[in-house]
């Protein structure tokens, strides 16, 4: 039975308060929420702090375990855990990226990466945790290599976008980097051999079925053969690439348009995230969260996606980020301009 055949509801588990300004971004700590390890979530805010929330083993509710403050001097815009969960990277409007390590019960800032000329908008670790990408309003994308002793070396500064770069995301299994921007394009970056020579291998613009306005976010599915992007143009687009071809070393396969979801949103979509099971969550400026799942295959135009459910007034203000937990617990976290974070569970309706 495919997901679309079942009816679901998004049940609010908890509302996390604490930040004193809008919450921009969220990141679930890898390898938590599973095998008896309590789920851990990081959030970052316009209040210049990062908060770490942990689910209590006893009560199941999330408590704030740490506040990472007095490091960034402006809004913290993005946060991401390294794949092992050891390090947390935070990108800020103060143009720096801080790297945090847990020492006992506290988090310490062990490194500060400078280089961007102005606001850092997004940070992302590659699958092996050896590379960190950052991007910002200065239109550039930086790639850093992680060295022993929490040393970071700048591998490359990538220019190509003509406006503010909103997000960078590494592919889940290959060292391919995607970025999306206020310039309406999505760019794919790859390394030429092993030479630190990174360059743009593909630009998806309006003429290649791309977005017609700012692209705010992108997310890969777990197998890495699809990615979803969302935009100010009120659409969500799904893209596919021949991963087998790329993995066999046959060069970089281009990303092709599969599907555009339009008519579902009437305000800017700020966030889209693909769960391990293939459910796409979106967070938008109309304060709502929407979930999409694959529809029936075998139609003339190929795979389609359908709206599974819409959660109106998920928050009191714009939803900036939605993030599925990587554990198999169907937990979804959302962050909003209203300064709160909500934890949701995707469950069958209470009657069942």
């Amino acid at each position, binding site marked *: 039975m495919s997901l679309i055949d079942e009816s679901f509801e998004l049940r609010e588990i908890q509302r996390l308060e604490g930040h004193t300004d809008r919450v921009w971004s969220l990141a679930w700590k890898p390898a938590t929420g599973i095998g008896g390890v309590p789920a851990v979530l990081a959030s970052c805010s316009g209040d210049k702090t990062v908060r770490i929330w942990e689910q209590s083993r006893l009560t199941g509710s999330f408590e704030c375990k740490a506040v990472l403050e007095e490091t960034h001097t402006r809004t913290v815009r993005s946060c991401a855990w390294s794949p092992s969960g050891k390090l947390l990277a935070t990108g800020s409007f103060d143009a720096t990226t801080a790297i945090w390590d847990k020492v006992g019960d506290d988090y310490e800032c062990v490194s500060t990466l*400078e*280089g961007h*000329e102005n606001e850092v908008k997004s940070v992302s670790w590659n699958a092996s945790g050896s590379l960190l990408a950052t991007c910002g309003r200065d239109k550039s994308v930086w790639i850093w*290599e992680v060295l022993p002793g929490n040393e*970071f*070396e*700048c591998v490359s500064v990538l220019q190509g976008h003509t406006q503010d770069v909103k997000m960078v995301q590494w592919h889940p299994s290959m060292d391919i980097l995607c970025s999306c921007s206020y310039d309406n394009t999505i760019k794919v970056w790859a390394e030429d051999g092993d030479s630190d020579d990174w360059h743009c291998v593909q630009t998806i613009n309006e003429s290649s079925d791309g977005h017609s306005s700012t692209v705010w976010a992108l997310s890969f599915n777990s197998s890495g053969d699809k990615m979803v992007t969302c935009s100010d143009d009120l659409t969500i687009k799904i893209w596919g690439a021949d991963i087998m071809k790329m993995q066999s070393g046959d060069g970089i396969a281009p990303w092709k348009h599969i599907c555009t979801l339009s008519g579902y949103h009437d305000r800017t979509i700020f966030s889209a995230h693909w769960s391990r099971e293939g459910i796409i969550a979106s967070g938008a400026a109309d304060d709502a969260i929407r979930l999409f799942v694959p529809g029936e295959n075998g139609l003339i135009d190929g795979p389609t996606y359908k709206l599974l459910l819409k959660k109106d007034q998920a928050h009191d203000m714009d939803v900036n980020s939605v993030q599925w937990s990587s554990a198999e617990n169907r937990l979804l976290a959302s962050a909003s301009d209203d300064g709160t974070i909500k934890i949701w569970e995707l469950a069958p309706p209470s009657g069942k």
Partner: protein
Amino acid sequence: LHKLVHIMDSFQLNSNSDSIKDIFDSSLNLEETHYKEGYTEGYNDGLSSGKDEGRQVGLKTGFQVGEELGFYRGCIDIWNSAIRVDPTCFSSRVQKSIKQMDELVEKYPKLEPENESVTNIMDSLRLKFRAICATMNVKLEYDGYPKPSDVKDIM
């Protein structure tokens, strides 16, 4: 009236039509002659004042390019000296980038301002410099060094 008749007689006689044509031509072409004179005067004037202005712009641009290249040359020389003293002071990646910067500075066509590669080479130099500084965690700037945000005014 007498002159007019004489002229008309001349036309009918079809003799000396060339000289008559000349008289009319010069008065008919008066506008064009004046235009040509004025244009030549203006062009020559422009040539000399353009040369002056060109010299000023060339001096300014040349100075700024020279200053920026010289700054990179200085940084590269210091870094290379440091490497000679202690070959392990910088990682192999940084050393490779310094070498690449060195090659770019040498390659810059200093005597060919209209060579197409000048912008590309300068852009590559600036990017490499930023990457090296970021890795070394140093802020290298001084008065007169054009900040990237200023660059659009210069070029």
